[in-house]
């Protein structure tokens, strides 16, 4: 995929996808003129197969399959360095958010599952408890990702320091949160929101 020739035509360049990204991120994809400053300052660029500028370039050409297939978008740390320094006010961090959202929706073909899993569990925690339950988050992640012993050495120490709580009190107004989740879902079903 990465090296495969691009056949450009109005059909292969998904401008609808670009519009979606622009709507979600509220930033212009086409403003980018490929100066490369985003990639120059990205702390995560070395971990990505498409550095940020190339993600932008592929996006400009409507080549979303190539972008979403890679793990690049999941390796974005949301550190906002790119957005801060872009000469064209391209809010690349927001574009990354939009891409992850669209990948998530499309049950994207990304190879990166750990980050996605962590995100999923985090959001589940919010809807179940209202607030984060760090202990549970870590434990469930380790179970689901099959890394039972990950960070086991840290556990007792943190527990001793009072940094891990065995129980989490649910918010009294938890239903309000759950309503937010369900209203958003409903809006999306109706096509009122992306």
């Amino acid at each position: 995929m990465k090296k495969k020739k691009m056949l450009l035509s109005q059909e292969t360049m998904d401008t609808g996808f670009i519009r979606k990204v622009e709507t979600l991120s509220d930033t212009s994809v086409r403003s980018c003129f490929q100066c490369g400053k985003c990639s120059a300052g990205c702390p995560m660029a070395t971990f990505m197969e498409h550095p940020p500028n190339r993600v932008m370039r592929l996006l400009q050409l409507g080549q979303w399959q190539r972008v979403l297939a890679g793990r690049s978008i999941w390796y974005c740390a949301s550190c906002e360095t790119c957005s801060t320094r872009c000469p064209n006010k391209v809010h690349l961090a927001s574009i990354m958010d939009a891409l992850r959202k669209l990948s998530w929706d499309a049950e994207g073909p990304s190879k990166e599952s750990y980050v996605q899993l962590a995100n999923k569990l985090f959001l589940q925690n919010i809807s179940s408890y209202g607030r984060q339950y760090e202990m549970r988050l870590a434990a469930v992640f380790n179970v689901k990702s099959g890394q039972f012993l990950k960070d086991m050495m840290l556990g007792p120490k943190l527990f001793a320091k009072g940094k891990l709580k065995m129980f989490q009190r649910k918010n009294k107004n938890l239903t309000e949160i759950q309503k937010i989740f369900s209203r958003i879902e409903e809006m999306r079903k109706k096509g009122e929101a992306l």
Partner: protein
Amino acid sequence: MNDTLKYAYYPGCSLHASAGEYDLSTRELFSALGISLTEVPDWFCCGATPAHNVDELLSLSLCAKNLELAEQVEGDLAVACASCFSRLKFTQHTLEENATKRKQVEKAIDAPVKLDGKVKHLLEILAKDLGLERLAASVSKPLAGLKVACYYGCLLTRPTDVPNLDCPEAPTIMERVVEASGAETVAWTHRLECCGANFTLSRPGVVLQLTNAILDSAKAAGADCIMVGCPLCHGNLDIRQKEIENVYSAEYNLPVFYLTQLVGLSVGLAPDQLGLNAMIVNPTPLLKEKGLL
């Protein structure tokens, strides 16, 4: 200026869990400085990075809900966690700029969005609302001789026009606050670099690499300790410091303080009021050496 500063307080999830000492020291410090904090009742998680990462609408809605809840309490909203601060500020910024998103969010929370209230990080309250002069006047045990590396991380200052805490590329607010407390600060290269907090669960290897570079830079600059304003940064720098030393065969031994802990020390609070015992890298030898304990 009103003598008693009053704030609604949004601690965020971490301060009720792994960063309990940040919560403790914040409350103790503010009461010592005569600043009133009232915790927002039944606040929710802001959604943090994972929420905006995959579902911005959810993230905005969660924060908007929290802003709505904060309206119940008198005063601006004081936020301790850099991530919560960033998300709340982002929400205000986005909803002010984008009417479509604002309407969607109002629908999700089933309430009008309120953007009038000010969201302030603790640093802002200390440096601006209280003022550095008054802060300095409250100092009884100056942190003389302590060389502090102030670590901002990503979200306190970035991106331009959103947090508006300080210059996004060359901030000085942390340095000014801790210098008011009598400490020395060091100039170092990695104070704005990312620690990779988002991956602390999923990809710890990444975190180790990024955080090591930060510790290395602070050490090279001659710092005695690091000061942070974010529980996520703290987690990586403090909790994982031993592991990093092992992996990279390095020796840092840099205690990582929350800003409220250091300022708290300077106004004469006791170690147990500041939760110093909860720190993984033991600060006691350093503080003793500097005559601060």
